[in-house]
């Protein structure tokens, strides 16, 4: 956690700096009528810099030994698999369409990550995609991405 705190503290310190600089230079800090569009970003940036510095100081002084915050072993593999498959679904959404994408996504997770048997996997995947389509596309009239197959 200590290392994570230092990374987060460093990153947020830079973000704060970026906001403070942008507030002064890219946007108007003070306009003739009063505070401009850069006013609050500047002060937010300064506040974030203060908080991030406090976190950095604390993490340097804190106890050296502490547990890892990211999982290891099977937990990590599963986390990465779920995240990867979700990102893949979003990437191909426009090509496959929502319905086919959902089925592929569920098959990938249920069959290949969770090790479920084919019959239940297919039943859940097709059932969910159909329910999703009926609720959102038919009932709520959300124009789903249709994909190259036309549905």
């Amino acid at each position, binding site marked *: 956690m200590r290392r994570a705190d230092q990374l987060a503290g460093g990153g947020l310190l830079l973000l704060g700096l970026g906001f403070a600089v942008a507030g002064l230079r890219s946007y108007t800090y003070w*306009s003739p009528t*009063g505070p401009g*569009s850069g006013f*609050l*970003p500047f002060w937010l*940036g300064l506040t974030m810099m203060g*908080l991030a510095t406090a976190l950095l100081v604390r993490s340097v002084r804190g106890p050296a030994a502490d547990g890892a915050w990211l999982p290891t072993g099977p937990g990590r593999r*599963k*986390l990465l698999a*779920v995240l990867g498959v979700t990102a893949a679904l979003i990437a191909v959404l426009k090509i496959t369409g929502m319905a086919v994408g959902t089925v592929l996504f569920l098959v990938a997770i249920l069959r290949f990550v969770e090790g479920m048997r084919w019959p239940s996997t297919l039943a859940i995947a097709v059932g969910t995609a159909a329910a999703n389509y009926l609720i959102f596309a038919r009932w709520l009239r959300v124009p789903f991405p249709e994909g190259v197959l036309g549905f």
Partner: protein
Amino acid sequence: MDFFANLALGFSVAFTPFNLVMAAAGVTLGTLIGALPGVGPVSGVALLLPLTFGMNPVSGIIMLAALYAGSMYGGTITSVLINTPGESASVVTCIDGYQMALQGRAGPALGVAAIGSFVAGTVGVVLLMLMSPLLARWALSFGPPETFALMLLGLTTVTGLTGEDPLKGYMSMVLGLMLAMAGFDIISGDARFTFGVNEMLDGVEFLPVAIGLFGLGEVLVGAEQVSDMRILRARYGLRDVMLSAADWARSRWAIVRGTVLGFVIGVLPGAGPTIASFLAYTLERKVSNRPQEFGRGAIEGVAAPESANNAASSAAFVPMLTLGIPGSATTAVMLGGLMMWGLRPGPLLFEKNPDFVWGLIASLYLANVMLLVLNIAFIPMFVRALRIPYAVLMPLIIVFCVTGAYSLNNKVWDVGVMLVFGVVGYAMKKLGYSPAALTLALVLGPLAERALRQSLIISDAGVAIFFMRPISAVLTLLALAAVAVPAARALRQAVRGRARAAAA
């Protein structure tokens, strides 16, 4: 009689067939969401918000409010039978609830929770109904300085109270405010922090962020845990959940105390049902004449916190409806919903949208009645739902996250934002940051900025204007105290820790 006319209007709205169906769907889904570990009321509301877009706002809020109330009831089932809280406001119920279940008294534990929840929920709505119009009328006199001071108070108290680490809580809040800066500035028309991306002109939209943080983020935290839940074999049929005279005698005052405490805590901006349930449990143990039984299956230890969390969930609507400041993470997401439906939360809501406010209030009465029946007679049904393996539930929630985020603007961009904030939410949760504070800041950010700048424009004395008007002075001082007290405590602890290290 203005008041009764309003209430009659509310019930006429609540009793339309579609709204009745929405309330019933809300309580059922809410109980289920409360019962399932890994999805709580915030995720539930964020995930279902997209379903309400096509609806009349009244129907939408009725479903979401019923869901919120239902989740407060449902969380108990998991706490008592699995010793795992279904949602955070039922954490403390595990202590005595699970002990009761081990002693074969799961039935009375679930029964007293349902009855306590019903009493507290109903009394909470009565108080909400009586208090809100008065508060709204008072808040009508607020100018920009008061509005800003109030938002500052809401932001600082939520942050100070929700996270385990106040420093990280404040960092989450400032990050949320920073995100709120992106997009067109309403006063000057400048496009800020868009980096040339067209989609960023509208700013960082609240819904994909909320779905990412609370939907996908929670699922990812759950995904890495390889757990096996064991549901205790117990009797919870209709006859088993009835209370004996002795149980009732022990729990009735606990219910009353839990209700009062829960409502008071819930009304405060920033303190929601979770804090209320913890305080109610502590209070009950203090006033009890047999404190040694707490932790070993004392029925008061279930009755008090379960009443308190329901009273607080009703009370959380008071600041949200009258002031536009949410009292909990869940109402913060609902507030975002209100804005998406095109309503302006705040005191004018009572004048401009009486059907919305009173329809909501009337539906909360109905929801509590539905929930009492559901949580006395249908417990076995919800226990069966608990047997759905997380392996199946998890991908279904992700599909819902993806579809929900997409349906906002029918753009894949929003789904990408959702994914990014899913990862952010996962990291925040694991590292002790506060997604609730970030969300609240993102929702309130644009309103707070406008109030701040308007205040400074009308002020001749710079920021001193916040201390020159009585109401805003009190609110600002309270907000500053909400930051200063935890900061001073942390500093004192650090100094003491170093002194001890030097002495050793």
